């Protein structure tokens, strides 16, 4: 059953994408969209249950273990939320001419093709397939980033496809080197599950170079500084639902790739080496993102830079390592994904009301769209790392791991940046929510579907901050074990 699911799961979004091409009717397209995402979500829950009961399953080049399932779960939840949000968002976007009604089917088809490539990425056991799927996500999402077709969108799309394609060429090079070391040690296959048992016998010199190439390569895709230059452009120019997927899931998929190689490198060269590399990139990301967050005027760029910071925090958690740091990092992946998607949704609604993305022009959102404004505030409070929201918990765990490992300098820098960003973020969002709205702002009642999509994410965000369901906690623990024990 579970083995069957492994090949059915990537097939669901693929079939959904193909179905999209058969119709032009917007209502029908949205129905297929939500339906496909719901089926994907339900099947994933079944797979999670099966793996929790019977351990990892493998089928050819695909494999489901708890580590991959954490990312898969995040992916399907966000896909469902995005589909629900898109129903109402699309109506508005078509009305103002941001999306052309006659080309909608290609948009939907691309979104689901993008989701399909991400599903393969998180389920890939073969490191070559992991790379192919990762490049597949770049190709499909680059078209989506430039989908609006204006020059800014195309500029962002070009920068995105060129920079990330160079980046992951490095990833492929690193993969080749690690495979060469594994072939020498007699692994015989290119799959992660075949390399791991012999990982301790791999040649440390070649794995070290390979890991650095992989780190730069997949790190580019993950948006780690200093390879993040494409990220604020791409995440801000993409259509809002795509921004949510890019910031919420895609960069996390790249992190999963890094984690897979981290486990190999930790076994071959000792855990200290990959940890140090991760710490350097993590700290750089947190520091580099801060000034741009403070000085930003474009709300979607603000959220983009903010993703750089949070990917940095995940890298820090992985770098501090140990059970606590890794658990915190994985929890942070989920928390940040859910919260950032919510923030993008709310920002997208605000942008539609005011007709601008300049935060200086967005004032008094509470008076214009009270529910969206409240959700935006909640998301911002959570992103800033305040209790009782989920991100507070995972940041605390990362911090705890750092203290346990006595990385005092890293902790000091991390804390200073988090405080500065907290102030900057609350200033920006507070100014958007309060004040007197301009007369031109749209005051029509809020559409149900975007609200429903946002509520879904907000509920998860609040829930994960207050209590961690035992089943989810167990999954994270088992995933942590995979990373720590190798």
């Amino acid at each position, binding site marked *: 059953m579970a083995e069957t699911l492994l090949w059915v799961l990537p097939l669901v979004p693929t079939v959904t994408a193909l179905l999209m091409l058969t119709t032009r009717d917007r209502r029908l397209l949205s129905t297929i969209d939500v339906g496909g995402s719901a089926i994907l979500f339900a099947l994933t829950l079944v797979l999670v249950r099966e793996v929790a009961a019977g351990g990892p399953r493998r089928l050819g080049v695909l494999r489901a273990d708890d580590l991959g399932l954490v990312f898969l779960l995040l992916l399907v939840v966000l896909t469902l939320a995005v589909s629900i949000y898109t129903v109402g968002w699309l109506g508005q976007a078509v009305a103002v001419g941001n999306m052309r009604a006659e080309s909608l089917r290609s948009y939907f088809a691309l979104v689901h093709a993008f989701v399909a490539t991400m599903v393969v990425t998180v389920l890939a056991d073969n490191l070559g397939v992991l790379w192919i799927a990762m490049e597949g996500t770049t190709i499909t999402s680059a078209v989506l980033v430039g989908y609006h077709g204006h020059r800014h969108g195309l500029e962002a799309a070009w920068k995105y*496809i060129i920079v990330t394609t*160079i980046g992951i060429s490095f990833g492929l*090079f690193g993969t080749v080197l690690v495979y060469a070391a594994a072939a020498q040690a007699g692994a015989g296959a*290119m799959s992660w599950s075949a390399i791991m048992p012999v990982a301790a016998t791999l*040649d440390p010199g070649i794995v070290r170079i390979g890991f650095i190439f992989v780190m730069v390569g997949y790190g580019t895709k993950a948006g780690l500084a200093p390879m993040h230059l494409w990220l*604020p452009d791409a995440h801000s120019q993409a259509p809002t639902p795509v921004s949510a997927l890019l910031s919420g899931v895609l960069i996390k998929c790249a992190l999963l790739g890094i984690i897979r190689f981290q486990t190999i490198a930790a076994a071959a060269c000792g855990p200290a080496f990959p940890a140090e590399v991760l710490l350097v990139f993590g700290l750089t990301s947190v520091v580099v993102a801060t000034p741009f967050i403070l000085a930003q005027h474009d709300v979607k760029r603000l959220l983009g830079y903010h993703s750089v910071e949070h990917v940095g925090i995940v890298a820090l958690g992985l770098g501090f390592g140990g059970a606590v740091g890794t658990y915190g990092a994985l929890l942070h992946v989920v928390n940040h994904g859910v919260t950032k998607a919510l923030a993008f949704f709310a920002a997208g609604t605000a942008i539609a009301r005011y007709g601008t993305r300049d935060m200086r022009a967005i004032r008094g959102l509470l008076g214009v769209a009270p529910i969206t404004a409240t959700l935006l505030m909640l998301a911002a409070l959570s992103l800033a790392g305040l209790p009782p929201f989920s991100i507070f918990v995972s940041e605390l765990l990362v911090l705890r791991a750092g203290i346990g490992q006595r990385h005092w300098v890293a902790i000091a820098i991390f804390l200073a940046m988090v405080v500065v960003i907290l102030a900057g973020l609350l200033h920006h969002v507070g100014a958007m929510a309060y004040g007197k709205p301009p007369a031109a702002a749209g005051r029509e009642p809020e559409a149900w579907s975007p609200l429903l999509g946002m509520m879904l994410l907000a509920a998860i965000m609040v829930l994960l901050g207050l209590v961690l369901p035992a089943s989810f906690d167990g999954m994270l623990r088992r995933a942590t074990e995979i990373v720590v024990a190798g």
Partner: protein
Amino acid sequence: MSAETVQTIIDDLGALLLFTMIVIVAAGQIYRAIYAVAAQSLLIAIAGGVLAAATGNTDLWVIAGVTLGVKAIVLPWTLHWVVRRMNVRREVEPVIPVAATLALAVVVVVMSFHLSASLGSVQPAITGNALPVGIALTLLGVLVMATRKTALTQMVGLFASENGIFFTAMAVTQGMPLIIEIGVILDVILAALVMAIMVLRVRSTVDADIADLAELRG
């Protein structure tokens, strides 16, 4: 063929590959860069053929054939077609002078050899000087992409970089599994297609080179 003969041939091919790469870095005209990258792909296909004959690995024949068809013929032809279609008036447009790029290229090559020499213990398992050449090609491709302002030259740099990875994969591991190599090539074709469409689209709507747009900042 004896192991030494193969080693010598691969080393010679490696030298030729580096030469084509230098031609790409130094090229003042886009056509010259396209021909050089086509020649480079041809050399890699030959290297694949030699290794296939030497090791008896039939997968390598397929990979060599696909490399020849796709990277030495189809992709350069596509680039050529886009250049004609765009009616390019501007040529390569370096960000920094070509002479400076060449100097950097020399540094990169020396560094690559130094880096792989530091891997003393694994050297015997790796065919001759394939690893440093592969690293050098990959990095020089990136150098071309970073120092050129036109979209098509950036694409040439990308293909050169991919060539370096393919050469390394062939020589170091005697080829990755066939299905993976095919998948990688498929990705390269798709990426090239999407890039070509973007280039033409920007050219037709705002009459500018897509790589030259620089309005998103901060």
